[in-house]
């Protein structure tokens, strides 16, 4: 493995030789395993930017400025050594192997570099190569399974949003997403999807802003999990931080990397609906009244019935189908055989493409370094007419203006343009609403496609009564090509900083950083659609500016006691300004999408203008004793404008300690051991504009203006919320890094939460901001590595991540008689809600449950007609969307230049209610709703004719069920889903599934051309070839026809509920990388 690492380093870094003023130090770096020398070791003059890299022989030359006397030798896999030069001119060093990847320098909060040994909190790093391994356009998705305690939930929509949760949900209604920080600059990961979108109603998933970050520009990602690690970032970091370090140039070098990757995507049919092929359109076993539509009187399909509980297929029966109405169809006015469709809806999905081309140039001179990158990413989605283009530019540079003064700047720009993003939820723009819920199994998708393309008209299978247009469902090709959305986002982030070394123990840094995004989203509903034609436009501008001033010092108290720290201040100003407007009453001119093209005057647009200012001061002090005992103290005070005056200042401390006990107790088998513990508090402010009450403006009635009391009651007595967390862990490394692990236990309690709780409408409000509630998360995280085989040519290493979080809502608000026991987070279609309930895990699903005969809840009771009985109340807890545990197993095999890696991603537990099954079984789409019963008769035949279905369970008296339930919808009675039991539906609990899965998430086979070949190519220093695959195989799941990972959106209510779920997408292709 080390050899591989060395090889990699060699191809990336070139030999550096530094020419300069002061004294020249040379030397050689070796280790016990590598007596001939270790190439690629970073040799840094402590406290300066001056440094060098060892060459192929492990030799180095470094110019040490006057006043400096310590060289820092660091390299992945070895203990960093600080070596005093004294008056030597040659410094040879023997590095000690250390816990692999647990010992290197890590970037911590505010960009402070720390030796991992000194850290007293859990932080897990993922290298850039691990992130770009399968060329995922959104780098966040590539973190799944790679970090213990990090729960990534990506959706299957093209460029869709991804949920990033560290150590569970802690805020009841606030933001639970991790904070993204790039090179010390917090950047937006806003999800601008509408509230309707995230609660499963009409919407389009436009993704979140983290997708704008260029994966090829990432050097490493460090996940800071607990409050002790993140406290210096202030309140926003309470949910953990994804710290991204971008690639930097090296002095006196030039490196050019060109990367070209292409992957193809196709849907995983095991996550899509399968259809019964016995019965066609209708809610009941009948056609429409026979009519003459052109070739004589014949049965007419019930076009309006968006269900497949109709007459049995019969190839000898000729009927008028939807295309008999279409004057341009070859079947116009003709009867066609009554058979199941040849091309079912899965044929709607196309093969997608993801092309990723990037170039990165980095290097530097004596006093400068720079890195310049450009990436072009073209994504073609799996739905017709969908694509995303991304152009990503990155630049950073630093310049040592003098020995004491270094200036650094970074500028990054991403332009994303999207077309035909996927409609989600219960929405005509989501094709899965038809495919999974309301469909006729006789409709051939390819014929629908042909019908659209003949004249680009909305020729639907779902004609209205007058056969003049669609009643509910449009032709989906019409939907994709006419009712499409488009969007763009310009995302800029960057900073300029000045670092001045006042003395060799003291430096001051000033930094101004900026992030701004401009979003445009346009949505269309064309004239001729089932819905009223409409054009909606959303413009949103966001910017955030941070000014940091930081004083860092490093002054050892004695030779045994080190002391360093910082004192700083941060001014943050952010602003959101957005406007959303729609046409009113339809469009006048077809195909013109403009707000002026409106039938009636447009309603007043929704304008939002929010500003937030937070000023913080912070301090941090680190004490070290003999490189084995460390103590870190931090504190921060923030003053936020979102809180009422008087309550707007809050202070929070953190303390952390660790002990590297292998410094005191050495053993042959235990190479490295450390225990750590910390306690931290973090304060948090309120969402903007939640203090003072205002009125809502409503569209006036003619010339009469209307205002209305808001539905949310604000609160001018809010106080800051607070998270208190405690964490302890142990890191062990055995047999010189043959195997090792890191175990962390944590508990965090978030109290005084600022939540807009739902309240009884009888209060006059449906929500009110209160300070209340406590949520606790506790759990363990384990990350382990083992190298089962290591020979000269072959190495097998395995990394395992496991985390188990337990979450409980301890309290909500109110006391005594007024105690509130439940806060609904979202109420979904189907009578299912997601809730924060006292004593329960966050986000439990409520709905009607089965009635059980026994306490153990094994015997479901059926009524006198054989249908499952449901509880009278729909607030029974029927599911918990929180997984029992999540984990990832990453294997890497290397043999000479070959490297095979694969990642298995596992989630155990986590319940999901499927509206798709609830409706789709009720409308008779799925095989479960047809076939024969145990008497050998069709389940859809009348019970009196021996049909019906015998549901497993007991009768009300406890005896085994022997009542066949009618399963034909003509009178509103199926045995399934929404239509069962006289339209009261089956218990919702019947459609709650276990969301466990085991997925082969990533496979990558790479081959680096050996130096023996590349060496002859002149400028080319290295070539890597890769075959890659992502989401190739779902090894195990319990949801029959969908991907258990699929949710609605990112956000608090976006999990545990599926409606119009998109199938999982497989990704496979190749990648070539050249180094020059």
């Amino acid at each position: 493995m080390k050899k591989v690492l060395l090889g990699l380093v060699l191809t990336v870094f070139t030999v550096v030789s530094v020419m300069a003023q002061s004294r020249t130090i040379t030397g050689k770096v070796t280790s016990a395993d590598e007596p001939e020398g270790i190439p690629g070791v970073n040799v840094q003059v402590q406290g300066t930017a001056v440094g060098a890299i060892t060459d192929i022989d492990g030799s180095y030359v470094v110019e040490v400025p006057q006043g400096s006397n310590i060289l820092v030798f660091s390299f992945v896999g070895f203990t960093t050594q600080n070596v005093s030069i004294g008056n030597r001119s040659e410094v040879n060093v023997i590095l000690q192997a250390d816990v692999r990847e647990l010992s290197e320098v890590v970037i911590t909060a505010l960009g402070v570099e720390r030796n991992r040994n000194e850290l007293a909190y859990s932080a897990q790093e993922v290298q850039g190569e691990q992130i770009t391994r399968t060329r995922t356009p959104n780098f966040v998705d590539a973190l799944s399974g790679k970090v213990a305690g990090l729960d990534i939930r990506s959706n299957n929509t093209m460029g869709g949003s991804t949920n990033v949760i560290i150590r569970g949900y802690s805020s009841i209604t606030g933001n639970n997403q991790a904070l993204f920080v790039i090179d010390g600059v917090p950047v937006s990961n806003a999800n601008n999807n509408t509230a309707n979108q995230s609660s499963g109603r009409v919407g389009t998933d436009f993704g979140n802003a983290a997708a704008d970050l260029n994966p090829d520009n990432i050097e490493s990602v460090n996940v800071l999990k607990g409050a002790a690690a993140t406290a210096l970032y202030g309140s926003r970091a309470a949910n953990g931080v994804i710290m991204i370090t971008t690639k930097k140039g090296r002095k006196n070098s030039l490196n050019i990397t060109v990367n070209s990757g292409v992957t193809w995507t196709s849907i995983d049919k095991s996550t899509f609906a399968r259809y019964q092929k016995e019965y066609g359109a209708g809610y009941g076993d009948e056609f429409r009244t026979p009519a003459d539509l052109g070739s004589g009187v014949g049965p007419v399909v019930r076009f309006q019935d968006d269900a497949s509980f109709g007459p049995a297929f019969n190839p000898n029966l000729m009927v008028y189908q939807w295309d008999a109405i279409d004057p341009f169809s070859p079947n116009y006015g003709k009867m066609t055989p009554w058979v199941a469709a040849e091309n079912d809806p899965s044929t709607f999905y196309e093969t997608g493409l993801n092309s990723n081309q990037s170039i990165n140039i980095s290097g530097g001179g004596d006093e400068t370094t720079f890195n310049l990158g450009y990436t072009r990413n073209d994504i073609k989605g799996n739905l017709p007419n969908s694509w995303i283009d991304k152009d990503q530019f990155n630049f950073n540079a630093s310049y040592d203006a003098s020995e004491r003064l270094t200036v650094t700047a970074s500028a990054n720009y991403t332009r994303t343009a999207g077309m035909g993003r996927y409609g989600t939820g219960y929405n005509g723009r989501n094709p899965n609403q038809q495919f999974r819920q309301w469909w006729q199994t006789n409709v051939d998708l390819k014929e629908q496609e042909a019908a659209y393309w003949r004249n680009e008209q909305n020729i639907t299978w779902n004609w209205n009564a007058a056969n003049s247009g669609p009643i509910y469902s449009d032709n989906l090709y019409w939907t994709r090509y006419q009712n499409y959305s488009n969007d763009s986002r310009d995302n800029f982030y960057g900073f300029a900083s000045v670092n001045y070394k006042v003395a060799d123990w003291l430096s001051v840094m000033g930094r101004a950083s900026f992030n701004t995004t401009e979003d445009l989203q346009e949505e269309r509903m064309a004239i001729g659609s089932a819905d009223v034609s409409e054009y909606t436009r959303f413009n949103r501008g966001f910017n955030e500016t941070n000014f940091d001033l930081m004083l860092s010092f490093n002054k050892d108290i004695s030779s045994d006691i080190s002391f360093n720290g910082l004192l700083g201040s941060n001014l943050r100003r952010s602003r959101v300004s957005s406007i959303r407007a729609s046409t009113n009453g339809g469009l006048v001119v077809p195909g013109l999408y403009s707000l002026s093209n409106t039938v009636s005057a447009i309603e007043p647009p929704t304008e939002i203008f929010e500003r937030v200012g937070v000023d913080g001061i912070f301090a941090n002090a680190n004490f070290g004793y003999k490189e084995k005992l460390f103590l870190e103290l931090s504190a921060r005070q923030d003053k936020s404008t979102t809180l009422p005056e008087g309550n707007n200042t809050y202070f929070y401390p953190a303390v952390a300690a660790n002990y590297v006990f292998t410094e005191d107790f050495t053993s042959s088998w235990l190479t490295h051991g450390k225990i750590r513990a910390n306690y931290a508090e973090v304060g948090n402010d309120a969402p903007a504009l939640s203090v003072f009450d205002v009125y809502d403006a409503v569209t006036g009635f003619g010339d009469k203006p209307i205002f209305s009391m808001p539905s949310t009651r604000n609160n001018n007595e809010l106080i800051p919320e607070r998270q208190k967390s405690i964490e302890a862990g142990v890191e062990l490394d055995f047999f010189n890094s043959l195997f090792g692990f890191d175990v962390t236990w944590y508990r965090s309690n978030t109290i005084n939460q600022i939540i807009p709780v739902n309240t009884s409408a009888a209060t006059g409000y449906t929500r009110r901001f209160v300070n209340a509630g406590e949520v606790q998360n506790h759990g363990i995280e384990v990350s382990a590595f083992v190298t089962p085989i290591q020979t000269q040519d072959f190495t097998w290493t395995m990394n395992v991540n496991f985390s188990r979080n337990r979450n409980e809502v301890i309290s909500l608000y109110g006391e005594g008689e007024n105690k509130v026991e439940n806060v609904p987070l979202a109420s979904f279609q189907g009578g299912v809600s997601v809730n924060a309930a006292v004593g329960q895990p966050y986000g439990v699903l409520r709905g009607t449950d089965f009635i059980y005969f026994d306490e153990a809840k094994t015997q479901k009771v059926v009524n006198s007609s054989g249908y499952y009985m449901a509880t009278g109340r729909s607030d029974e807890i029927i599911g918990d969307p929180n997984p029992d545990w999540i984990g990832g197993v990453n294997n890497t095999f290397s043999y000479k230049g070959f490297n095979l890696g694969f990642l298995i991603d596992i989630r155990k537990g986590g319940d999901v209610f499927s509206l798709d099954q609830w409706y789709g079984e009720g409308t008779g789409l799925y095989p479960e709703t047809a076939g024969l019963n145990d008497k050998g008769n069709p389940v859809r035949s009348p019970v009196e004719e021996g049909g019906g279905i015998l549901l497993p369970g007991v009768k009300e008296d406890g005896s085994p069920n022997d009542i066949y339930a009618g399963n034909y919808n003509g009178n509103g009675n199926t045995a399934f889903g929404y239509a069962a039991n006289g339209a009261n539906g089956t218990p919702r609990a019947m459609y709650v599934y276990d969301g466990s899965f085991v997925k082969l998430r990533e496979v990558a086979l790479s081959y680096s051309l050996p130096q023996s070949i590349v060496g002859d190519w002149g400028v080319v220093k290295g070539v890597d070839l890769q075959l890659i695959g992502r989401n190739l195989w779902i090894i195990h799941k319990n949801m029959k026809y969908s991907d258990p990972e699929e949710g609605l959106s990112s956000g608090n209510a976006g999990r545990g509920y599926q409606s119009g779920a998109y199938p999982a997408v497989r990704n496979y292709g190749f990648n070539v990388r050249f180094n020059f």
Partner: protein
Amino acid sequence: MKKIFIYLVSMVLFASCVDNLDDFNVDQKKASQVPPGTLFTGAVKNLTDVMTTPNVNTNNYRFYVQHWTSTQYLDEPRYNMTSRTIPQNMFQTLYRDVLMDLNDAKRLIQENDLMDPDVKDNQLAQVEMVEVYAWSILLNTFGDVPYSQALNRDISLPAYDDAATVYNDILTRLDAALDRIQLTADGFGNADVLYDSDMAMWVKFGNSLKLKLAMVLADVSPDQAQSLVEEAAPNVFTSNADNAAFPYLSNAPNNNPVSENINPLRTSREDYVPANTLVDAMNELEDPRRARYFTQYNGEYKGGRYGFTNSYSEVSHVHDDIIALDFESLLLDYVEVEFLLAEAVERGFNVGGSAAEHYNAAVTASFDYWGAPGAAAYLAKPAVNYSSASGDWKQKIGKQKWIALYNRGFDAWLEWRRLDAPTLLPPVVEGLDFTVPTRLIYPVNEQTLNGANRNAAADAIGGDQSSTKLWWDTN
């Protein structure tokens, strides 16, 4: 060195000194002060919308009285109240979007010391009458509801009050509002969509409302009902011109909610058709109003089978006039006033005239309102004529009132519960047992948001069932 250090430290700390950012907390896009009339207009519109809409998520009363039925989706005609949050939508609209806005309008008016006291009295009276109207809907829908502790920003879990007690209180408030009216002064002016601030009309409206609300108590406390009815009767509506009609506009979102759910300009859905129960009854009487209520199918009026699936293309539809974007909606009308007076006579209350006279006036006014010809001939039919029509007075009035209250689902449902006529049978489906609702169940989210109070109320009214009868529904 030390000096530099101290200087740097103070610079770092100084940098964080917050300037005055208090206005960051002020929403620059929303009003913190509004004229009370704007709240009044909005509340009246929201009230009318919720009473008018046929949207199955909110208002299914047209189904309950079998004026309409659905084509494909049977949940609501079969009285399911939980697969959609129907009671919740009704409850929420009335409390949050009607009563809360009225409540705040009242606060703003009362706090305004610079206002003409007469105008102030009139505005308060207008607010109060609409509030009484809204409260009566809540009480007559659910029974016990939060009242004394409702709409109070300091009480997050309002207790439910006894419906009969609250009902008496709103009747008292209605009297007080009537007493406040100053006929010579203005009220809300242009903000009054119903009567354009004609206070004489508000006197009629208040008295007609009083007549209607009092009659609800006629079975349970006849003496109280009698005195209230007799007080109100001299000042009630005297023609259709007096109707409390909300004049919807043709532009969304101010179009009639019926059009929003049926008119092809606003929706492609074909969910609602007239039910056979009403159509057959009117066919039997050859009622000329059919031509105004329904379209024809194959030269006849054919209703959809109530509670079963129906082919939209094979039955009559709701008349084009009713689904027009700007079709007006009635909150209270002269027709029902005359029916109430007929009933008052039958109950022996002293309101003048005979039951037949009022009955005839009611039917005639209904014909006039709908523009249907031949009221006299219709009234002459033995099956219609008050002297010869079958049944007791409740059945005679009940049947004609049920027909006349077409497109006013809630009121038709209220009168059906009160008069117990006509007979409405739930759909008969083997293995299933349906009962026509006599109330809405409490919103499901009251179970989770206000559970203890809701449970106490459920016990107090005899169970939170849709078949529970309200306190005045004693027959």
